[in-house]
């Protein structure tokens, strides 16, 4: 019985701070707590719930010994060439070798497992071809009794398995699929029910995500970083700047570690907020935090400041002589009545402003210092502000090799003294530059 037909949700986790471009006005939380909020995402990276399900093939219900039966069909292909043509050939070969289609259920389960290897797991034509392997008319119930008691359950289950794999890869069945299913199992059958449900829900859920991620992510890390940054910062007036291109671009993704890419994003509002920042208060570079884009995890850093203590916050007052044409405020001593007050009584999380976000190929201080240098060109005020690097080291990073292993908890944040040291160093650096 097919159950949920929801397309798989693409994980695109963002820590709460990253989405808030500018100030969040709310009461104050001590520094340590704010930091913990940002670190939480990084610390939890190793948790299994964030890791996409491993791409292991579906375990078919068929007996494992049958594997050997048709495995050779897939091994006939010329070595190395695992593409659609060879997959199609293997499926066709099965039909030719096996006129009576003996063992077709096992073959289909095997083929389903092989699809990913051949890179055809999103190809509708191939799924239709697989369904075509079923003999036609044989499994159609011919009486009410037959259709009440599941007719040829194993075959129906296999058909559902094909549809389920389509579903998990987001492949929308078409008319041909429908014809095949009717021919094979008839209208009143479970695969057909699954098909109808897919038809209904796929179209409704296809565009449900207001922040869609493209199906094929760019391979170039710079492009991927741009995509990720745009994804986190929905403000269209934000500018993406490439502060440093990776030095060697011959092998994608494996750039020279000496010159990793640095891509940053900043909105005009953030620029203005940074320009107004009190130079006596330091700003922090924090990270790395993770962001999932489909099955890829990218890491970003933020430049943020602590929330101003209430006594230092400037109350935004409306200057008397501001608007030439109409009064900007009325001189009345009564405000909005409760009926028209739509402000919910919510507990607001307080956070300091985020001034910029960047994604870099490396997460060390040297790389991020280059980002800060680049930012200074568009934000001259930054040169006067001490910058403190609070990097979680590599603990936050998810390594493919150690993804299954429990990672040690992140080291305790550096003691205050160390921070100050960094702070001073940075001040000196700023002074020199």
């Amino acid at each position, binding site marked *: 019985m097919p159950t949920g037909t929801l397309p798989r949700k693409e994980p695109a986790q963002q820590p709460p701070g990253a989405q808030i471009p500018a100030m969040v006005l709310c009461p104050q939380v001590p520094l340590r707590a704010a930091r913990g909020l940002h670190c939480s995402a990084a610390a939890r990276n190793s948790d299994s719930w964030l890791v996409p399900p491993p791409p292991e093939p579906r375990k078919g219900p068929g007996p494992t010994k049958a594997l050997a039966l048709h495995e050779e069909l897939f091994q006939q292909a010329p070595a190395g060439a695992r593409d659609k043509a060879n997959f199609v050939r293997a499926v066709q070969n099965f039909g030719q070798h096996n006129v009576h289609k003996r063992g077709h259920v096992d073959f289909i389960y095997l083929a389903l497992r092989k699809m990913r290897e051949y890179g055809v797991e999103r190809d509708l034509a191939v799924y239709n071809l697989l369904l075509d392997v079923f003999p036609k008319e044989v499994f159609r119930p011919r009486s009410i009794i037959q259709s009440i008691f599941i007719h040829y359950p194993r075959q129906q289950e296999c058909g559902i398995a094909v549809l389920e794999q389509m579903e998990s890869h987001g492949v929308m069945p078409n008319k041909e699929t429908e014809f095949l299913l009717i021919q094979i199992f008839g209208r009143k059958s479970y695969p057909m029910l699954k098909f109808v449900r897919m038809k209904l829900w796929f179209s409704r859920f296809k565009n449900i995500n207001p922040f869609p991620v493209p199906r094929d992510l760019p391979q170039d890390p710079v492009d991927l970083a741009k995509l990720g940054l745009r994804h986190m910062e929905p403000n269209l007036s934000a500018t993406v700047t490439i502060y440093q291109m990776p030095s060697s671009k011959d092998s994608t993704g494996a750039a020279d570690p000496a010159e990793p890419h640095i891509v940053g994003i900043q909105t005009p509002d953030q620029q203005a907020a940074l320009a107004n920042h009190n130079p006596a208060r330091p700003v922090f570079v924090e990270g790395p935090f993770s962001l999932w884009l489909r099955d890829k995890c990218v890491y970003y850093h933020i430049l943020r400041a602590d929330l101003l203590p209430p006594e230092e916050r400037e109350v935004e007052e409306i200057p008397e002589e501001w608007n030439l*044409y109409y009064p900007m405020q*009325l001189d*009345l001593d009564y405000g909005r*009545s409760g009926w028209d007050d739509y402000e919910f009584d919510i507990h607001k999380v307080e956070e300091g402003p985020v001034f910029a976000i960047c994604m870099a190929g490396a997460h060390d201080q040297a790389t991020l210092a280059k980002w800060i240098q680049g930012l200074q060109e568009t934000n001259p005020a930054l040169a006067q502000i001490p910058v403190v690097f609070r990097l979680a080291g590599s603990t936050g990073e998810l390594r493919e090799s150690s993804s299954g292993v429990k990672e040690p908890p992140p080291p305790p944040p550096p003691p205050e003294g160390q921070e100050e040291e960094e702070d001073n160093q940075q001040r000196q650096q700023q002074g020199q530059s």
Partner: protein
Amino acid sequence: MGVAVLFLRGVVAARASRALVAFATSRRPLRTSPRSRAFAKELFLGKIEKKEVFPFPEVSQDELNDITQFVGPVEKFFAEEVDSQRIDREGRIPDETLEKLKSLGLFGMQVPEEYGGLGLSNTMYTRLGEIIGLDASIAVTLAAHQAIGLKGIILAGNKEQKARYLPKLASGEHIAAFCLTEPSSGSDVASIKSRATLSEDKKHYILNGSKVWITNGGMANIFTVFAKTEVVDSDSSVKDKITAFIVERDFGGVTNGKPEDKLGIRGSNTCAVHFENTRVPIENVLGEVGGGFKVAMSTLNSGRFSMGSMVAGLLKKLIEMTAAYACMRKQFNKSLSEFGLIQEKFALMAQKAYVMESMAYLTAGMLDQPGFPDCSIEAAMVKVFSSEGAWQCVSEALQVLGGSGYMRDYPYERLLRDSRILLIFEGTNEILRMYIALTGLQHAGRILTARVNELKRGNVSTVVETIGQKLRDSLGRTVDLGLTGKLGVVHPSVEDSARKLEENAYYFGRTVETLLLRFGKTIVEEQMVLKRVANILINLYGMTAVLSRASRSIRMGIRNHDHEVLLANIFCAEAYYQNLFTLSQLDKYSPENLDEQIKKVSQQVLEKQAYICAHPLERTD
């Protein structure tokens, strides 16, 4: 022509002496007498201040003769010598035309006689505006010169400044320009970047900055410039405040960019003006140091009401031209004038012209009353109504004309281009609507403070009284504000319309009270509400103006007064139903109120900065 000018001057001089006598005898004592309340502000309380608007303002026979004598030559000049098409094509007003305008005295219409101007009253200025409005480029050039350019000197200048600058400005020897807008600053004064710093010897201000879109910027010699200066506040803190300066081109460091290429009013000169280390003597500070904001505001507020008559003049001319075409052009053996849809357009044009003319002259008459009445809301309403009427009517006229309206060989497309600016300059209509609504709400809000506070505190008697009033209103009460009846100010022919006005005004007052109760001072943020409030008020003012004028016309037996009655009744009925609709939109739970949805749509569009619906041909499978 010289004779004509001499004659004109003579007329004006004669009039001036009469005016002076009148000034001496009647004006002084009246100025100190308590002024009755402004009409528009009282409407917000649901009251009609009859004394302000009934009877329709009149001018004396002498003054009328003066006007007629004065208007004749100007009219003749505009009809015979001004080649609007050429001005539009060449992008400049020919020198001989400018010279002629100067010799007619049109550069100093509102400059007092003692400074060599014509010293026209607002009513006479309005009358002349009708003719000047026939060529938009000239109208804009003249308006930039005297309605705003030199107005600051008249309003805020001291005796020396007036004596020094006004005579030459009035004669047109010098042309004035008003320099306020900057690349980063439109109506937001706080973002003005131009700066004037006091020189070491404290005798000069060094002015630096750039101004954009300055009308007459290329040909002006005298600029009213607004720039930031450091002012020591009362609590001895230094603050940046706006100060107005009179800057002569000869002060040095004044340059201007090349004239902008515009959609309409192409004959007027619009360009950027740059000031670079211009040394302005401290005597040339206009008003107080740091008082530039008030100068700018009063200048802008006073310059607006004349648009009404300018557009009315234009529309009258347009009706003539289009009507001739509609009667001549035949289709299906019928002339265009016999088709209902064409007739409708002429009725619309006549109605709009009638209403804006009435509003303009009513406002001018109110302004001419002794005591310097504050009619800035009324003036803003005239501006909004007439600019929108102009755009609508010119567009309808083009519809009558069909293809020839679209061709450059005919003058009509120029009128369309020219009239578009009216909705934008002198404060965009959106901004003026905010002004109209907020100024009135401020007035009403202050008066209603006690009542609102009692209601909010839950004072039993006030609450009961309010509920009782609401009940009576909903049961359909007849509103009588005293316009009609035996001793009413409105003639029985337009009595029905007057009742409509009374009903609208009453319920408007009730709605304003509810709005204040609901939003209080945060109503500033409810722009869609404010727009509706302003729209109702504009309609109410228009209704009042036509009722007042039509009543007067009937009682005096003026030519074609039955036509006026028709126009007045049509407008009042239309405005009444519009008002009813708008009032129901202002109701929080009415189905007509779509504010929430509208806000949501615009929010989604602006977030993506695009039209976000999928293409109609798109499929999901």
